[in-house]
C-alpha cells in the first residue's frame, strides 16, 4: 500500500436550516494515497461537493456545521486549524478545480493576474517579473500561449477557461488536487482533452487527486480507486476492478444499469427506481432501502455497517454479511 496523504475519519456534516437539519455527509471515512486518484461518484445531492469543500474548510457556516470527525493531513487535523493556518494549506498543499468554468473565474481580472494572485499569496517574496514569468509558464503548461495572459475570461472558450482554472489550481504545485466535476460543463472531445491533460500533469507533478463526478465512464478511465456515495454515506468502495466487475451494492448495480452501453445491445435500461431521499428526512435503517428491490424488514430498521468483503472492497449492505451471500 502506498503512503497515506490525507485521511478522512468519520466525518459528519450538517446544514442547519430553518426547514430542518440537512444531513449532508454522514460518517464518511476515506483515505487518499500519494500519487493516486480516488473517484467519488454520486448523484445530485449525495454530498459529494460538501465533502470536497470540507477538505479545504470551505463549508459556509452558518448553515454548515461539522458535527464530528477528523481530516488528517500531514499529522494535523485540518478541521482544527485556525484561519491563518488553513490559508497556508489552501491553494498550496490542497487546491481545487470547480465545476463551472463559466463562473469560477473573476471576470474583471486578466487570466494572468488570476494565476499570479495565487502564486504571490504563497510566495510573497517574489518580484513582479518573476510572477509574470511563472504565470506564463503555467499557461503554457496547460496548452495556452503565454501571450494570452493579458486577456480576460470572456475572451476564452469553456474548455480554455477550464484550462486556466487548472493552471491556477496547479500553480503552487499542490500535493492534493480536488477536481469537482471538472469536465461536466464541457463537450465530449474537449472533456477528453482536459482529462488527458489533468492526468499528464498529475503524473508529472506527482499530485494525488480526488475526482468528483457523476460519470462512471470518467471514473473508469481516470481513477485508481472509487467510492460511491449515496445520501451522504459511502455505500461501496474499492479498486476499479472490484467496483465495476464485482459490483456488490444494489445502488452501484443500479447506477451501472442506468448507462446505455456502447458495445452491447440493450433494449431497456435498468435504472434504480424512485428518487433520492429528502436529506432533511432520511429514511431509517439503510438509506437506500426504499429504492432497493432486495430490501428486507431488517434493512428498514437497522443501519448496515460498511465492511470489507475481501481485499479492501468495502460494502454497506446486509446481503454481503458473512453467511448471507
Amino acid at each position, binding site marked *: 500500500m502506498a503512503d497515506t496523504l490525507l485521511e478522512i475519519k468519520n466525518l459528519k456534516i450538517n446544514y442547519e436550516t430553518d426547514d430542518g437539519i440537512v444531513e449532508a455527509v454522514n460518517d464518511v471515512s476515506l483515505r487518499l494515497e500519494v500519487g493516486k486518484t480516488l473517484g467519488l461518484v454520486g*448523484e445530485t445531492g449525495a454530498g459529494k461537493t460538501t465533502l470536497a469543500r470540507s477538505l479545504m474548510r470551505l463549508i459556509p457556516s452558518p448553515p454548515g456545521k461539522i458535527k464530528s470527525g477528523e481530516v488528517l493531513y500531514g499529522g494535523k487535523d485540518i478541521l482544527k486549524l485556525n484561519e491563518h493556518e488553513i490559508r497556508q494549506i489552501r491553494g498550496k498543499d490542497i487546491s481545487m478545480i470547480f465545476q463551472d468554468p463559466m463562473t469560477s473565474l473573476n471576470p474583471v481580472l486578466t487570466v494572468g493576474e488570476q494565476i499570479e494572485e495565487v502564486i504571490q499569496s504563497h510566495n510573497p517574496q517574489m518580484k513582479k517579473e518573476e510572477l509574470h514569468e511563472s504565470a506564463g509558464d503555467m499557461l503554457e503548461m496547460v496548452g495556452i500561449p503565454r501571450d494570452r495572459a493579458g486577456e480576460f475570461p470572456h475572451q476564452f472558450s469553456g474548455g480554455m477557461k477550464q484550462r486556466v482554472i487548472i493552471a491556477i489550481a496547479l500553480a503552487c504545485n499542490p500535493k492534493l488536487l480536488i477536481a469537482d466535476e471538472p469536465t461536466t460543463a464541457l463537450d465530449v472531445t474537449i472533456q477528453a482533452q482536459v482529462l488527458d491533460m489533468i492526468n499528464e500533469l498529475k503524473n508529472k507533478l506527482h499530485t494525488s487527486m480526488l475526482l468528483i463526478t457523476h460519470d462512471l*465512464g470518467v*471514473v473508469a*478511465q481516470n481513477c485508481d480507486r472509487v467510492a460511491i456515495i449515496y445520501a451522504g454515506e459511502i455505500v461501496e468502495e474499492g479498486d476499479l476492478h472490484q467496483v465495476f466487475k464485482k459490483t456488490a451494492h444494489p445502488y452501484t448495480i443500479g447506477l451501472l444499469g*442506468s*448507462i446505455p452501453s*456502447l458495445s452491447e445491445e440493450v433494449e431497456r435500461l435498468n435504472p434504480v427506481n424512485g428518487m*433520492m431521499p429528502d436529506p432533511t428526512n432520511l429514511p431509517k435503517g439503510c438509506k437506500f432501502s426504499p429504492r432497493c428491490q432486495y430490501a428486507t424488514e431488517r434493512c428498514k430498521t437497522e443501519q448496515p455497517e460498511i465492511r470489507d468483503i475481501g481485499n479492501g472492497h468495502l460494502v454497506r449492505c446486509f446481503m454481503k454479511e458473512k453467511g448471507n451471500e
Partner: protein
Amino acid sequence: MSDLVRVENLKKYFATPHGILHAVDDVTFSIERGKTLGVVGESGCGKSTLGRTILKLHEPTSGKIFFEDKEITELNGKQMKPFRQEMQIIFQDPFASLNPRMTVYETIEESLLIQNLVSRKDKKAIDKKVREYMDLVGIAARLINSYPHELDGGRRQRVGIARALALNPKFIVCDEPVSALDVSIRAQVLNLMQDLQAQFGFTYLFITHDLSVVKHISDEIIVMYLGKIVEKAPAKRLFANPVHPYTKALLSAIPVPDPDFKANRIILQGELTSPIDPEPGCRFAKRCQFACDKCRGADIPLKEVEDGHQAACILA
C-alpha cells in the same frame, strides 16, 4: 414506409454584427413514421437550431420542410396552428421551460385548451384528461397542484413531456431532454420515452450531445459539425463503422464505464471554429489530421459509403 418529416436543403443563417452565422447549412434528411432520428454534435453545431427551424420556431433562411408531404415552409402563424398540434417539442432545461406561475394542472390544461381538444366549460373532462396524462408520464396525482419549484428535475421533465403529449402529436422534437438529469433519473425518462413511442407510435427527432444515449434511443443518427451533416447512418452501423474523422474522434472520446476497456483515443486539437462566415470546404479541416488541399475550397457533399450510410469526407 412513409416519411413523416422531410427536410430539403434547409438553411438557417443569423445576421450578427460580425457577419453571417451559418447555424444550419444545407441540411437534407427525412424521418420515417414511428422512428427516431438522433442528432448528435457538440455545443454550437446547430443541432438545437435545426430542431427549432423544423418546427418553424425559427423562420428558415432557405430550403423546404415537409410534414406528411405537405410543405410547411412558407406557412404563417395562423396557417401553422393545426400543425402545431401534431408537432411538439420537449425542451432541454426543465428548470427554465415551465412557467413558474402555473401548476402542473394548469400547464397540462393549457395544452388541451389552446387547441380546443376539450371544451373549456367541461371542467370534469379537463380534470380527467390532465390526470390521465400525469399518470401516463408517471407523476403522482398528489402533485397536481404543485408549482415547478416544488418539483425536482426528473419530475419537471415529466411535466414537460406530459404537456407535449396532451396534444396527441405525431412528431416530437426532443431537444436534449435528459441532459440536465442525474444518471438514474435519466434512465427512467429514457425508458418512459421509449415506452410511449411503442404505445403511440410517435416519431422523434432526438437531439443530444450524449453519444451513448443517442445510440440507445435512435434508429438512425446524423452527426453534425458547424451546421453541416458530416455523417448519417443507421445507429448500429455508425458505431460499428464510423467513417468521418470527426465521428471517429467523437466516438473515441466517450469515457467507457469499464476499467478493462483501453480506449484508443483520438484527441482532437483545438476547438470548434467559428460558424460566422465559414470558408468554403470541409468545416472540420482545421482540426482534422488527414486534411489536405482537396478539403479546402469547395464544400464536400455527402457520399454513400454503404447502403444507407453517408459521409461527407473526401477519404470516404
